[in-house]
């Protein structure tokens, strides 16, 4: 309603008086004049006539009014618009093809823009998100290695007092268990310092955010997705209680969908930081800080001011020397990760848009030839060239705006596509929606396109000399085509299409290569199950706190799972999930016997059990794998991979060598390490290389140790099954429950194939190959439609000419050649340009996509395009020779 009111108001300011108002006034004047004339003695009928002759017709008065207040241009444009719409309706085939070509381009570009807007320009819903910094320590030796640091709550409060700081949020996440109904569910809780509400400045959907007065109160705020999942979006959830870890929490708020703090470990629930003390016997809780700077403070200045303060706080940390403080805006990691991807995709859709525009230009030019007669008449009866150009432009804008409407509607779905293909590359917070900026962008785009593709045909067609084209009804016979602007357009279109197709070819080629790359392990039918052990509950934790008890507990669960029907092998590991593209810890240093201590020897330490190799089908190359007893003991033995043996040992006598990992035990309250974990270990076996640094990177040297040597408060099981592993989830849950009824399984059970799909390089390559495949298919379709309709139009135009030629005895092949010549030659020229462009740009593009330039795929693309173009020329050209000469002569 308010929209209508706004439109009415705008309209009122443009044309303040209504039609009736103007007419009524004029009639009253007319009547007064008429009365005067009658008084002067004229008969009534004559007075009426004279009044109208002198003053004018009341019906026409509103036009006079609009003309007087300068709305004439407006009216004429309205007329052009109506004319354009009528022309489109009269020619639906043309309209559909033109609108569709543009809708594709505008839809894809709008989708990409809304993606860029959501991810790079405005990804976070927080107030002053550009001032929120993620502090980390930068090592002087390895400036690319980020090290997060934590602060206590008091330190967060101290930091808040520093001059450049507006506010500081401390947060930490932990696992919680819902304990009041059915199977225990493991959820992720994020503890926030109590200034969370003002720091984020996000209005909750219901209730409120964590507030300062919530300190020490058992309250909880729900994440939108969790609220949807657990409470089915019940709006009356506020005030109810949620039982977690056997404590009751009052639900005080639900956050909106756009709030998904933070990053990949999005919390299901948000809790006051003061509740962190409840952890049994834990050390003083520490928090990751986010620092919001005051407005107009530069990052460099804040860095300089905060570094001494932060390091003052961290003096008890050993690693102060050689480290710097780095403040990084929270958007930066995403810009680094996805900026290039999005730019490349944007380039792809812009190409698509240009091809679409070229298509429309071609169509307009081709159709324009049938309209020359109409335009000639218009200009003969006095339309200026500007008036004709304007009308043609308005028609083009009608097409582009219709295309934009269709495209924007489609972009709503299109924009979700990349997100679903590569979910981990984008911030969880970014919600794709069509907002004012996106709409403004697409309207601007539509106008730009309309002018872009409309201007050339309009200028070209308006240059008609009426004297030449008006008597041209019989000109069909001599219609030797003049200079063809559209042959340039065809060539450009073909060249750009080839570029897109070759890019798609490169992407698909390298993705296929990636898929065929030997992994060194067999991910099929293996699933990873993560399990968090009870450490919140003091009594339960005591029972499994020691290393031996924990091993026994885990082994018991492992055996129970293994005994379930259909389960082939069950293995245990701690953070050893291949392809291991996102290492939790950096590699460890080690010493080998007979060599001096040198820091350069680094290897990835994998904590697994002896079944791990069987479960993942990693082949044993030399020696043996440890047995059950050795696994329980955990010490004195190690297995290495082939990369390790080649790099650090002369591979012939790897067995029997000794190694030692000094930094192995973790200083962590929940970790149980064996006393001998840093002792010398004998290498008893060498296994094959399994990808352990992402799917595309070479395998790094790895040391496999029994997981019992360093045990954490969580563990992962690798389950190899017959058929799809996820179907066994229920029986596995039952097996686990038979050991400990309240032992939860984390929600994220996934197959190892899914783990590969989440790999950054894998998902990027897949994204590129699918999207560029789609783009190039669209571009190919557009280019072929362009060529097809051009040839079809010109054949229809020249039917008479062809008839005469055939009647005079021209061979059919010759006529056919004449019909397709120009389109075919310009397509061929386009191919040549495209090939040249591609060999120049292809290398750059391939570098951007981080994949090898494939000449073979370029050739395949060129062949496909050439074949398509040939068919698109030939099919409509058949009509040139199909019509019997006598009939085509009668055509006029």
């Amino acid at each position, binding site marked *: 309603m308010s929209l209508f009111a706004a439109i009415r108001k705008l309209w009122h300011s443009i044309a303040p008086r209504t039609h009736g108002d103007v007419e*009524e*006034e*004029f009639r*009253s*004047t007319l009547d*007064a004049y008429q009365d005067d004339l009658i008084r002067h003695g004229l008969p009534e009928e004559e007075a009426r006539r004279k009044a109208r002759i002198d003053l*004018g017709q009341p019906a026409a008065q509103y036009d*006079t009014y609009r003309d007087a207040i*300068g709305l004439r241009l407006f009216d004429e444009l309205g007329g052009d618009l109506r004319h354009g719409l009528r022309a489109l309706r009269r020619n639906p085939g043309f309209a559909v093809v033109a609108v569709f070509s543009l809708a594709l381009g505008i839809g894809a570009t709008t989708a990409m823009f809304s993606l860029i807007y959501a991810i790079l320009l405005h990804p976070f819903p927080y107030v002053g998100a550009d001032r929120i910094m993620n502090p980390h320590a930068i090592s002087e030796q390895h400036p690319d290695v980020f090290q997060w640091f934590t602060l206590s709550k008091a330190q967060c409060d101290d930091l808040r007092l520093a001059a450049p700081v507006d506010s500081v949020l401390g947060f930490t996440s932990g696992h919680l268990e819902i304990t009041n109904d059915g199977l225990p569910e493991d959820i992720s809780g994020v503890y926030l310092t109590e200034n969370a509400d003002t720091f984020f400045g996000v209005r909750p959907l219901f209730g409120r955010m964590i507030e300062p007065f919530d300190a020490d109160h058992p309250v909880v705020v729900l994440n939108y997705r969790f609220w949807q999942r657990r409470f089915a979006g019940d709006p009356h959830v506020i005030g109810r209680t949620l039982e977690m870890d056997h404590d009751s929490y009052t639900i005080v708020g639900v956050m909106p969908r756009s709030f998904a703090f933070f990053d990949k470990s999005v919390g299901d629930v948000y809790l006051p930081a003061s509740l962190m003390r409840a952890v049994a016997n834990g050390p003083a809780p520490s928090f990751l800080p986010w620092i919001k700077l005051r407005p107009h403070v530069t990052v460099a200045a804040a860095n300089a001011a905060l570094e001494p303060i932060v390091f003052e706080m961290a003096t008890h940390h050993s690693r102060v020397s050689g480290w710097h403080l780095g403040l990084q805006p929270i958007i930066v990691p995403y810009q680094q990760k996805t900026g290039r991807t999005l730019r490349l995709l944007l380039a792809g859709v812009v190409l698509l848009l240009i091809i679409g525009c070229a298509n429309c230009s071609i169509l307009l030019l081709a159709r324009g030839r049938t309209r020359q007669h109409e335009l000639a008449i218009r200009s003969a009866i006095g339309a200026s060239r500007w008036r004709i150009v304007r009308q043609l432009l308005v028609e083009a804008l009608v097409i582009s705006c219709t295309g934009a409407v269709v495209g924007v509607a489609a972009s709503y779905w299109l924009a979700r596509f990349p997100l679903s293909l590569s979910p981990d590359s984008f911030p969880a917070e970014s919600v794709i929606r069509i907002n004012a900026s996106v709409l403004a962008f697409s309207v601007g785009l539509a106008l730009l396109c309309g002018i872009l593709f409309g201007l050339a045909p309009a200028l070209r067609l308006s240059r008609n000399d009426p004297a030449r084209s008006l008597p041209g009804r019989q000109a069909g016979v001599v219609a030797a085509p003049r200079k063809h602007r559209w042959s340039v357009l065809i060539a450009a279109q073909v060249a750009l299409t080839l570029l897109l197709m070759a890019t798609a070819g490169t992407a698909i080629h390298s993705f296929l290569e990636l898929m065929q790359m030997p992994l060194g392990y067999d991910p099929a039918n293996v699933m990873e199950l993560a399990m968090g052990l009870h450490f919140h509950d003091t009594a339960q934790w005591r029972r499994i706190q020691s290393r031996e008890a924990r091993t026994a507990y885990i082994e018991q669960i492992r055996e129970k799972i293994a005994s379930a029907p259909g389960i082939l092998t069950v293995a245990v590991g701690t953070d050893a999930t291949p392809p291991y593209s996102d290492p939790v810890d950096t590699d460890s240093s080690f010493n080998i016997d007979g060599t001096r201590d040198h820091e350069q020897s680094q290897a990835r330490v994998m904590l697994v059990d002896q079944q791990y190799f069987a479960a993942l089908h990693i082949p044993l190359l030399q020696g043996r794998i440890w047995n059950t007893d050795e696994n329980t003991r955990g010490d004195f033995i190690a297995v290495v991979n082939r990369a390790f043996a080649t790099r650090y040992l002369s591979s012939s006598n790897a067995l029997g060598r000794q190694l030692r990992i000094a930094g192995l035990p973790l200083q962590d309250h929940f970790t149980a390490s064996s006393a001998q974990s840093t002792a010398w270990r004998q290498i008893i076996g060498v296994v094959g290389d399994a990808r352990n640094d992402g799917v595309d990177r070479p395998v790094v040297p790895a040391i496999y140790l029994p997981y019992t040597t360093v045990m954490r408060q969580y563990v992962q099981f690798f389950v190899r099954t017959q058929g799809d592993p996820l179907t066994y989830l229920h029986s596995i849950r039952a097996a686990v429950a038979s050991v400990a009824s309240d032992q939860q399984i984390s929600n994220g059970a996934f197959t190892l194939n899914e783990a590969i799909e989440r790999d950054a390089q894998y998902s990027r390559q897949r994204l590129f190959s699918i999207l560029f495949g789609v783009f190039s298919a669209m571009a190919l379709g557009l280019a072929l439609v362009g060529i097809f309709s051009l040839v079809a139009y010109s054949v229809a135009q020249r039917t008479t000419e062809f008839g005469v030629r055939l009647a005079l005895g021209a061979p059919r092949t010759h006529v056919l050649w004449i019909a397709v010549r120009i389109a075919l030659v310009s397509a061929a020229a386009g191919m040549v340009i495209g090939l040249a462009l591609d060999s120049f740009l292809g290398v750059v593009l391939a570098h951007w996509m981080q994949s090898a330039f494939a000449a073979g795929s370029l050739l395949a693309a060129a062949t496909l395009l050439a074949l398509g173009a040939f068919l698109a020329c030939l099919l409509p050209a058949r009509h040139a020779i199909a019509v019997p000469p006598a009939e085509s002569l009668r055509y006029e």
Partner: protein
Amino acid sequence: LTKPVELPQGTLEMLILKAVSLGPLHGYGILLRIQQISGERLEILQGSFYTAIYRLERQGWIKGKWGESENNRRARFYSLTAAGRRQLKAESAKWTDMAAVVAGILDKKAGEI
């Protein structure tokens, strides 16, 4: 009978402003008043008359309001706005200046040049 005078371009609007400045008038009233003041010597192009009124209203120099005419008909009465008063003053001054200059030139005798 005196000879009718043709109106130079652009002066009609000034005359309408002047007519309305003496009190609110409806369209036909304006027409009559101009003719009356000029001693019936001005032949107003009636077609352009309303165009001028619309333009003046658009500029905000006159303001229209519906009311009752002398013979009980609904009519739209125009009155001068503050901006219109200023405009009329400026236009009249300009006109007087120009007329004086033109008259001065035309009055010159051959010997005086």
